[in-house]
């Protein structure tokens, strides 16, 4: 299992436990989409590499989530992947934030 789902009040945190997000691990993340609540944060803290198949799967996930009216956020993204996310327009659908900001917004 490469993901761990935690509930923090009304916020769902999907922690990605693998250091590489590829098509396989992205599928697991995609499979977890059914458990996403209205506000979900994907924690990329352990992720060091995301290949194009991983980006593709993530994009489809975040766009689908957005179409369902859910809000997705990205946590702990490296500078390199921040730029990649920006180029593929992922940040429009899944803005970067911090856990503290999310918790503060919830209270």
């Amino acid at each position: 299992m490469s993901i761990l789902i935690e509930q923090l009040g009304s916020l769902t945190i999907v922690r990605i436990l693998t250091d590489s997000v590829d098509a396989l691990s992205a599928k697991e993340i995609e499979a977890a989409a059914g458990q996403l609540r209205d506000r979900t944060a994907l924690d990329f803290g352990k992720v060091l590499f995301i290949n194009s198949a991983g980006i593709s799967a993530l994009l489809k996930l975040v766009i689908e989530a957005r179409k369902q009216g859910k809000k997705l956020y990205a946590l702990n993204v490296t500078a390199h992947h921040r730029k990649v996310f920006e180029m593929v327009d992922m940040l429009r659908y899944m803005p970067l934030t911090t856990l503290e900001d999310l918790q503060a917004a919830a209270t």
Partner: protein
Amino acid sequence: MQPAPAPEARPRTPFTLLPPPGAGGLLSAPRAGRPAGDHRKLAQVRLGIIGVLAVLLPPALIGLGYPTLALPVLIGAGLLLIATGIGYTRGRRTGDIPSAWLFYAAADTLVILLLGALLGPFMDVFLIVVVVELARIYRHGRLVVAGAGVAAALILGKWALAQALGSAGGWGAGLRPADQTLLLAISTSLVALICANSLATFIQHYAREIFSYERIQEVNAAELHVAHEIQSSLMAPRELESGQWSIAAISVPAKEVGGDFYEYIPALGNSIGGIAIGDVSGKGIPAALQMAVVRTIFRIEARRRIFPAETLTRVNQSLQTEMQTQGMVTLLYAFVDPLEGVMYYANAGHNYPVLLNERVTELKLAGLPLGVDGDTEYDERSVPLHPGDSVVFYTDGVVEAFNPHGELFGFDRLLALLAQHRTLAPKDLVHEVLAAVEAFAGDTAQSDDITVVVLHHDLSVGRPAKGSSSDPARKRLEPATAPAGQPADAVWPTQTVDSIGIGSLRTSPAHNATEGR
């Protein structure tokens, strides 16, 4: 540190002591797929051998003074003949030849067991033979070796015991010493024959598998080489010059074929017009196939219209209907107005192009990759390109190259490199980037396709083209320069887009920003 992705392991032939499915042996099934004609011939040979043994052996045994052995041999031969008949009939009826030969093997095994029972004192030896043969049939290679070893040890032990104790040893009681010796010799020979056959089958199987694996590898390599040649020939020329504009490009797939591509769309009477660079997610043959589809759709759409944003939007819509994209495609399309010196561009999730003049500027324009959402509409921006300016387009294989320490080449390293070499000619700059990535990666396997395209607005006005027309790598933007064997419009459409009118481009409402100086 970021771990470098491990180079993909070369597929290996598993070397376990397992027999091939349906591998042929003295007592077992032949290879799957053996034609029915072979089945008939093998059955005939089998019948012939058994018939000869059944006819010759009993009289010979009786003649030699061993009448008690003749009956078991006759019974065994009769059972084998019946089994062969049934197996052959089944094989012809069902067409499942390996299954028929497995039936032979089972019958052979039963006959051996029966003979062992009839021969009494040698039952244990034959049981081991049965174990060996069954193990081989049911593909437990290690049991075969173990069974053969135990059988050999038992036979040798019995022989030694017989030598030491003679007929008073208690085993084989009731038989004459000469009969004991003969039976021992027969059983030993039979065990040795079967064990040798089993081992020979394994050796043959693995030798055949290794040879066929190498042959398959050779065929695959040859086919991939052809695919590489085809893909290379379909790529746009690596160098182009047109008046004040020049382009150099290079694409290095991580495998023989890749998912990166670049393309030029001519304009204004075959002058430099559109430049596209794309990257299909994944690599190898799947990516190459998808790339071919994307590239074809792009070329069709780019010929129909001039605006990059509109082109990308249409390509994305076509991709949604024309193919079920499993991944995504990043594509950046820039269109140069060579008269005004302006480049218009739209981006579907591709790496930002980099403008080189006195500064190094990333032309930031985000967009969803193609194949992700069919409803996407792309933005468009423009940037003036003054004489001396260059624009570098690249794919993610550049910035995501790893070194042996697992570090990424990264955007910062690339921008610093471009700043250092921003005055180089396009061809030299392309090679400088590639050399830097190669030096950085060292022995680390290339993990992704790498493509770099450099567009340059020459300082000199109307200077003669660099290089000679005899340089095969250098192509001029003329219809006659299509690669050999291809019609001119396969690379440069004879119906150029100048009739659309560059002037209208500047009034397009799609242009929402201007970057650069």
